[in-house]
């Protein structure tokens, strides 16, 4: 399907988000469009009210002199008014650029400078302070608006406005500027930029991905229809607004379908709010599902013996029948009955506690999810599926249709998306959602997207025989070779390690080497709870990570992984020979991870070069000093002596090592 053919199926007047908003306000004026918990109560706005608010904001922006083609940066947590500010910016013909709110000032400076943002909309004082700090270097910023008034009274307001004030001025200027606003909305077309999103980028500087109205709206339409989304669905918007997924779910699909977006009260109340809202459509990275499961398991450990036995009995039952029931496969009457009883006693209450009872469709993506975790949710009857996507594709490349859900694939190409595998195994796609270009970066655009519109994902994968599902092995550039010519796929091994609740993060090294070694990060909540139950005292992450019994447990995990890796002939060389448990958690503030919590392999490799040398050397322990950045930006040093452990390896590789 070519890009223009795709737009033919959508009425031409629905070619922008403001146009969709107008349609929703006409069609479902009284349906809730947004909810936010404020002062302990869920406040809601209907589509008609939303339109009114967005209009006032857009007029306010006009009063402040926002031009067509201006870039408007938006920084803050998920709040209705910030979503509105994006649509309001679009209405006046400007381009919204949502930024990660936890970005440190220099990261922010780069992006603001790169897009030349004239306007910045901030959530609160903290963000305003960051922008003011950045303003010394970044000269393009002209007006700052903020949403939360707290602590802002003393600031110089000559070029600063409370969003509410701007809206009030906008309302007052309705007669003067109303016609101009109408004209600007009418001028929006398929090829105009809908949003610009900066990719966090595991390497190098972030790149601004330009997504047009066509990209966003057609993709939203296709994906909404794929999962039969409808008005009346509910989502919880809690993932960073700068992430493409949030834009697609909370703006694209929400405006296309007309469902309700719920914003949590604060980041820490997310799980409580999830429970109160009970969304029907839900997205979470594997990390969140993992955390939820860990919490459940920890709490079950503390439950009474009767409850614990009930839980384990029925969970066993669920594992057998749950996924089959979900996929609509035949199940015996006895099993069905047991499942129904389990639902009454265990699954129902559990789903209720987690806030997942009403879920019709849930997605996870971004990282591989552990088979046990995936199974757990599926067996409870939660329709958890996987999708594969990236910013450049407006999210969707492949996704799993209902009834064909498996842990080890990422599904079939999404509607309207073509996928092909290059000779070296790299996955390419072409779709109506394929991005226009990287902003001010024609070289990168050309190297990523060819003239025919095919985009290289940078991931290596293959289509499975028979089912036609795509399987992703690793980042194409991370797949390397061992010194003996064997395949080196670190992510594959790391994911296997990370499926253990005790292991939060793992980094495997071995490219061009004769064997593999690994860094491990323990999961503080899981290991901490274990320590508590076993009366083991510890005062810090570092101390816990260095305990002998913790290392023993991790060693067991590593050896289990080695055993399973040894089964795979191609990857048997990737078994871990030596490992150590790091003295600090890998952290985005120290540059070791991206803001979406993906490990930056090269940086970790450089930063901890001494540790890698030690792993390949023969020593049993190593003393190291690491610079860390605290949350307020100050730097400090962390000193530790780390123990290095040898792990048992299996199969042919073991024989070879023995021969040496």
């Amino acid at each position, binding site marked *: 399907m070519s890009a223009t053919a795709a737009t033919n199926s959508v009425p031409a007047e629905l070619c922008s988000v403001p146009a969709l908003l107008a349609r929703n306000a006409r069609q479902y004026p009284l349906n809730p469009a947004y909810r936010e*918990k*404020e*002062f*302990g*109560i869920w406040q809601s706005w209907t589509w008609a009210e939303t339109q009114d608010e967005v209009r006032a904001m857009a007029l306010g922006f006009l009063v402040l002199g926002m031009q067509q083609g201006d870039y408007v940066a938006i920084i803050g947590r998920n709040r209705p008014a910030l979503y509105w500010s994006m649509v309001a910016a679009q209405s006046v013909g400007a381009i919204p650029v949502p930024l990660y709110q936890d970005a440190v000032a220099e990261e922010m400076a780069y992006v603001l400078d790169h897009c030349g943002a004239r306007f910045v909309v901030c959530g609160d004082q903290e963000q305003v302070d960051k922008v003011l700090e950045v303003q010394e270097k970044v000269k393009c910023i002209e007006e700052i608006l903020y949403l939360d008034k*707290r*602590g802002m*009274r*003393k600031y110089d307001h000559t070029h600063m406005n409370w969003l509410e004030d701007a809206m009030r001025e906008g309302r007052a200027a309705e007669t003067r500027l109303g016609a101009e606003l109408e004209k600007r909305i009418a001028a929006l077309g398929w090829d105009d930029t809908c949003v610009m999103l900066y990719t966090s980028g595991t390497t190098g500087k972030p790149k601004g991905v330009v997504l047009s109205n066509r990209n966003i709206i057609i993709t939203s339409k296709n994906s909404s229809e794929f999962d039969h989304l409808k008005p009346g669905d509910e989502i919880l918007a809690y993932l960073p607004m700068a992430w493409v997924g949030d834009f697609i779910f909370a703006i694209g699909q929400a405006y296309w379908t007309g469902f309700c977006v719920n914003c949590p*009260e*604060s980041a*820490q*109340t997310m799980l*409580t709010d999830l429970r109160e809202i009970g969304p029907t459509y839900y997205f979470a990275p594997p990390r969140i599902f993992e955390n939820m499961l860990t919490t459940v398991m920890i709490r079950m450990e503390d439950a009474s013996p009767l409850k614990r036995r009930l839980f384990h009995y029925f969970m066993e039952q669920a594992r057998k029948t749950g996924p089959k029931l979900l996929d609509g496969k035949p199940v015996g009457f006895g099993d069905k009955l047991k499942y129904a009883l389990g639902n009454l006693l265990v699954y129902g209450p559990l789903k209720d506690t987690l806030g997942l009872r009403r879920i019709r469709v849930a997605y996870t993506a971004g990282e591989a999810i552990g088979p046990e975790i995936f199974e757990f949710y599926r067996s409870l009857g939660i329709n958890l599926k996987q999708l594969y996507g990236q910013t450049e594709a407006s999210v969707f490349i492949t996704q799993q249709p209902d009834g064909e859900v498996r842990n080890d694939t990422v599904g079939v190409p999404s509607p309207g998306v073509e996928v092909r595998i290059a000779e070296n195994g790299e996955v390419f796609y072409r779709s109506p959602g394929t991005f226009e270009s990287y902003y001010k970066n024609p070289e990168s655009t050309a190297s990523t997207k060819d003239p025919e519109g095919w985009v290289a994902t940078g991931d290596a994968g293959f289509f499975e025989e028979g089912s036609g599902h795509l399987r992703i092995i690793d980042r194409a550039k991370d797949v390397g070779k061992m010194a003996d010519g064997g395949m080196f796929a670190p992510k594959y091994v790391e994911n296997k390690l990370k499926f253990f609740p005790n292991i939060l993060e793992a980094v495997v090294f071995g490219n061009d080497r004769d064997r593999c070694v690994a860094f491990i990060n323990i999961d503080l909540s899981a290991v901490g709870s274990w320590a508590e139950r076993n009366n083991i005292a510890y005062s810090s992450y570092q101390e816990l990570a260095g305990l002998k019994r913790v290392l023993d447990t991790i060693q067991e995990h590593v050896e289990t992984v080695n055993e399973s890796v040894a089964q795979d002939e191609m990857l048997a060389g990737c078994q871990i020979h030596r490992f150590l448990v790091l003295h600090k958690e890998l952290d985005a503030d120290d540059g070791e991870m991206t803001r979406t919590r993906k490990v930056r392999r090269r940086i970790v490799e450089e930063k901890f070069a001494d540790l890698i040398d030690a792993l390949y050397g023969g020593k049993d322990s190593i003393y190291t000093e690491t610079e860390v950045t*605290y*949350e*307020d930006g100050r730097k400090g040093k962390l000193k530790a002596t780390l123990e290095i452990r040898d792990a048992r390896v299996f199969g042919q590789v073991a024989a070879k090592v023995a021969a040496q």
Partner: protein
Amino acid sequence: MLDTNTEDGYTTADGRKIGGVAMELRNITLRFGGVVAIKDISFDIRWGEIRAIIGPNGAGKSSMLNVISGFYHPQEGEVIYKGYRRPRMRPYQVARQGIARTFQNIALFEGMSVLDNIMTGRLHHMKANIFQQALWWGKAQREEQENREQVEKIIDFLEIQHIRKTPVARLPYGLKKRVELARALAAEPSILLLDEPMAGMNVEEKEDMCRFILDVNDEFNTTTVLIEHDMGVVMDLSDRVVVMDYGKKIGDGTPDEVRGNEEVIKAYLGVSHD
């Protein structure tokens, strides 16, 4: 140099307007038996300012705070509050004067939720009688809603939404301190007394607390009197500082003035007698 003599107050370096005298303490002397805790101290507190009381251990700071709150009645001297000489009062009468405080050792109801704890701060805003309360009808219901609204605003302000329903006993120390501040704020005090609000906190918690104290002052224009040991905090936060040593006042003025005061340096650092 401040001009503290005019009735109209003064303007701080960051441009805040400080009003007239809210409370004046005149020649206060407080004794416990033979021990003289406070000896002939006079100073004033002005509307809208952040006033700090500092001094070494045992200088009589907390006693001073208790005198301000009306919990202790000094043997000599007088307290002029809102223009009137204050008589001896019972603690509940003190609370109704519009003076709220936090304690050096946290004094919350450990078994109750954060929300309930803060609601207790609204106690004297509730006028319904016991029967209305018991039936939760009419006035009682209306009042509870109004008070809950106020409390929710404070919860939002102090960013403690996530612990709204958590029993206080389960909270870490830093958060308990914040809840205590919330409870004091719930009373909508005209003068807020903070007894070592940052004792035992880590750097990050201290920074948060500083921000909250400044924001409270900014948002509600609450007059704040605080005792604090952390000199950095005191000098950053306060508009004027009283320095006490062995029950006597040895300094009074802006942080800069106090910093340069020789008596103060002597009390804090000691001087060699050679």
